[in-house]
């Protein structure tokens, strides 16, 4: 059994969360509230030591990059949220982050999710080097189109669209089922990880 007090704390917190499976209880409620408190406290620390100190305070206190003070001022406008008359100023820092994010996202999503995926879907002669790969490529091609059609909202599903969108949902359901089955494995791994921690690090029963 471990003699490290921190291992004991970790083990007790682990059990506290597991106790939720039986039912909600004071032990879980304590862990839950503690978790929320610690993660927020950690976030404050992290933002301070890993962002504000190295990126702002260090250079500015050396007299370098004084323009960063402008950005600090813009960031500080978040505080206006608590002053009703000035609370609209909070839109300025949001505009900075949101605008840049939206702008940077556009070309990158086009490249990664449209251009690259289009290239991968197009049927080419190299897909047909053997029969099996050839058939699979055709199925993917058809499945992509059927799935896209499933999400057409402009017209009612009638005629050929009805059949195509129905085959779309077949692909979607097969895909979701496979993902679910696949994920089971992963989640069990996590549980194995936690149980191993309890058995090995805390109780010392297994190696």
């Amino acid at each position, binding site marked *: 059994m471990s003699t490290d007090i921190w291992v004991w704390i970790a083990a007790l917190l682990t059990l506290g969360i597991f106790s939720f499976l039986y039912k909600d209880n004071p032990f879980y409620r304590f862990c839950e509230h503690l978790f929320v408190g610690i993660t927020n406290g950690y976030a404050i620390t992290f933002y301070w030591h890993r962002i504000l100190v190295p990126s702002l305070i260090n250079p500015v206190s050396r007299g370098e990059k004084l323009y960063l003070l402008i950005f600090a001022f813009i960031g500080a406008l978040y505080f206006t949220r608590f002053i009703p008359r000035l609370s609209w100023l909070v839109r300025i820092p949001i505009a900075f982050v949101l605008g840049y994010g939206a702008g940077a996202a556009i070309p990158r999503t086009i490249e990664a999710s449209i251009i690259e995926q289009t290239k991968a879907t197009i049927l080419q002669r190299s897909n047909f080097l053997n029969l099996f790969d050839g058939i699979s490529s055709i199925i993917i091609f058809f499945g992509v189109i059927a799935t896209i059609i499933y999400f057409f909202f402009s017209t009612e599903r009638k005629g050929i669209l009805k059949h195509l969108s129905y085959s779309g949902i077949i692909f979607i359901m097969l895909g979701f089922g496979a993902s679910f089955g696949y*994920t089971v*494995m992963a*989640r*069990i791994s*996590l549980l194995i990880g936690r149980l*191993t921690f309890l058995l090995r690090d805390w109780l010392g029963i297994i190696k």
Partner: protein
Amino acid sequence: MVSRRIIYLILTLVILIPLLRPFKLKPLPMKPVEKLFYYINNIPKDKALLISVDYTPDTEAELHPMTIALLKHAFHKKIKVGVLTLTLLGLGLAEDALQVVLKEFNEKAKTREDSIIYGRDYVFLGWQTPPLVPLLGMGESITKVFPVDYYGNKTDTLPLLKEIKNYRDVGIVVSISGSAIPMWYVTYAQTTFGVKVGAGFTAVSAADYYPYLNSGQLTGLLAGMRGGAEYEELLEEHFGKTKRRKATEAMSAQTTAHIAIIILIIIGNIIYFYRKKK
């Protein structure tokens, strides 16, 4: 309500028992794993394998065995290895994996040629943030991004890094992560520098990245514990038995849990059809 708790209890038991008494399994290596294995197996002498330990302790159970298996593979084949991490918490894990594998190899080694030597056979570059700095910077110069390594050595004094200067000298980067970090390598390092990228994912996120395997953006992919176990199996086929196979051992508990869930689904459906008939 009661049946839910019974399910939880059954699941706990079917995992606990094999953890206490593991049994041996022989997994069948799958294509994405084989692809990665053989790609690494054929890395030319003048190129390196870069392992990016991008997971945190919460996904250690699933991903740590992958790092260990990759390191073993590289050391068996005498492929130069660079280890780095993009997550701070990955540092301790990377160091742990290195120590485990080094011990195993250097215990057996008789000559200096046989042993695995720091700076000659492998380097541990450490951690750098924000991630874009190493992701893009290594395309230009690894030593510029990591002026000192994890142990505090000046990297430009390390013989390995005199030959392995940037992505051009890297056969493949394998990023192992519980999140989307391997895709950062694809989006930034690959689109910009054309470096090959392999990935180790937790089983869950892996399903998401099959399209990228298909489109060739990922060279190979290890998914979850099973991916690790399959890689261990391939290692054993090529290089003989090793002492511990961590992923394979953990697989026994996973297998029983899987069987339990499959049986639960069958029971659920039997009850469903029985009631429907009534």
